[in-house]
């Protein structure tokens, strides 16, 4: 019981730590790729401390409530994802619940941003939602492929099934889905070339325009957790999860660095280009995977 409670308390903190580490790593590696020295790895932490202590303005209650909802949603999603052997809330609805709880984060940001009443926020949210629609099409297809293939909606069972038959990404029908997931991962994480919704140069970082101080802190934490969630989901579904947290972390790290290379090397796409891309190759791959799985099943 104590262990379970500890899991509940510690697991989100671990996830947050990993997420923040990834944020720092992202800045560092990007800098190295750009032939810069880069900030210290703890720079995001320093930033977050500053945000914590800095004053801020609020545009109304929804401005805060939306962010709280968003962050809470992200933390709850973390609780649903197995992390190695740690999995506090696995038995409560499975992947479908994860899918829906994941909606809380963008919805919260969108609500909060809406209250901000800034033209850049409007544009940013509009782009964010459009982009979300863009990557949700292949993403949902991928998830459905996995769920149909293993005939379960529980992530834990997907992980267990992979323990017997090897990684999903190595098996044929799911290979396509895995590739598709990898292709849309930058979009899900808001990395380049899909960072048009928060483009700083163009729309003053979009939904984040009015955030400062603790608001920005929460948005940063939310982003860190998003990194954790999306990558952990990939690792769980396609890379066989892991028996212990360390292996799991290593797998996540590999995937993240892969995404990071794309992030550092590509310019930003316009929103139509992004959608066009997302609905072309990743969707085609995911669809092919789903068709194969469906045929194989029947």
């Amino acid at each position, binding site marked *: 019981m104590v262990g379970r409670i500890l899991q509940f308390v510690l697991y989100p903190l671990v996830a947050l730590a990993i997420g923040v580490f990834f944020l720092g790593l992202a800045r560092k590696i990007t800098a190295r790729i750009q032939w810069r020295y880069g900030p210290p790895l703890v720079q995001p932490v*320093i930033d977050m401390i500053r945000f914590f202590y800095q004053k801020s303005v609020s545009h109304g209650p929804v401005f805060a409530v939306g962010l709280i909802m968003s962050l809470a949603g992200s933390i709850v999603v973390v609780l649903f994802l197995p992390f190695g052997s740690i999995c506090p809330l696995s038995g409560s609805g499975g992947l479908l619940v994860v899918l829906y709880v994941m909606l809380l984060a963008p919805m919260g940001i969108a609500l909060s941003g809406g209250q901000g009443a800034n033209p850049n926020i409007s544009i940013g949210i509009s782009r964010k939602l459009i982009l979300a629609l863009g990557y949700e099409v292949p993403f949902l297809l991928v998830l459905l492929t996995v769920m149909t293939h293993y005939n379960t909606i529980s992530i834990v069972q997907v992980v267990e099934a992979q323990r017997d038959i090897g990684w999903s990404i190595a098996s044929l029908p799911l290979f396509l889905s895995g590739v598709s997931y990898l292709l849309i991962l930058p979009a899900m994480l808001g990395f380049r070339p899909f960072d048009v919704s928060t483009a700083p140069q163009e729309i003053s970082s979009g939904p984040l325009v009015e955030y400062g101080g603790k608001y*920005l802190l929460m948005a940063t934490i939310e982003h860190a957790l998003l990194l954790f969630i999306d990558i952990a989901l990939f690792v769980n579904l396609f890379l066989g999860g892991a028996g212990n947290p360390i292996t799991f972390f290593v797998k996540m790290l590999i995937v993240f660095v892969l995404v990071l290379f794309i992030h550092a090397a590509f310019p930003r796409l316009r929103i139509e280009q992004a959608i066009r891309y997302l609905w072309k190759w990743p969707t085609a791959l995911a669809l092919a995977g789903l068709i194969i799985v469906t045929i194989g099943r029947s």
Partner: protein
Amino acid sequence: MDRNQIAKWFKEPSKMANKYSLHAIYFCTGCGIIEVPPVITARWDAERFGVIPVATPRQANLFLITGYVSVKTLKAIIRTYEQMYEPKYAVAFGSCPINGGMYWDSYNTIKHLDKYIPIDGWIAGCMPRPEAIFVAVTHLWTLIDKGMANGYERYKKYYRAYRRNQELALGKLEWPPLYPIGEHTEGGECD
């Protein structure tokens, strides 16, 4: 980081974080902006010091004013400065904001930026080299450490005067005062 640093972190986390996380907002107000890209890109890489450019004053705590300030730009500068959260630092770049520089007799530039918003540091030169920006940043650190980078407090204290100067230069401002002005009295020009 030595032990001293760590002790400082525990003692005054807010001040330390402010120091090492200078998120800068700058306007392309004048020619000085040409020096900023080298500063933030591979050649000089300001990110080493935690200085990164951000897109909005809400996230920033460092305001770089790069070059001369025309009257029209002044309005945007004031607005942006007021929208930054405390603690906030303004650094003027080049000689024009200091005294008008080569535009000293222009009808359309302001001469002393300090009359309109409080400036915490000046970088002289026309143009200053990128290294000068690093010097400014390190100086700013010192000032922050000593509690002397307190332009925002000055602004609050003498807001009435600042506002009056701003209105003298720009005419009536559209937005309401940031701080309560109270009843308007004669005099009280700062510095």
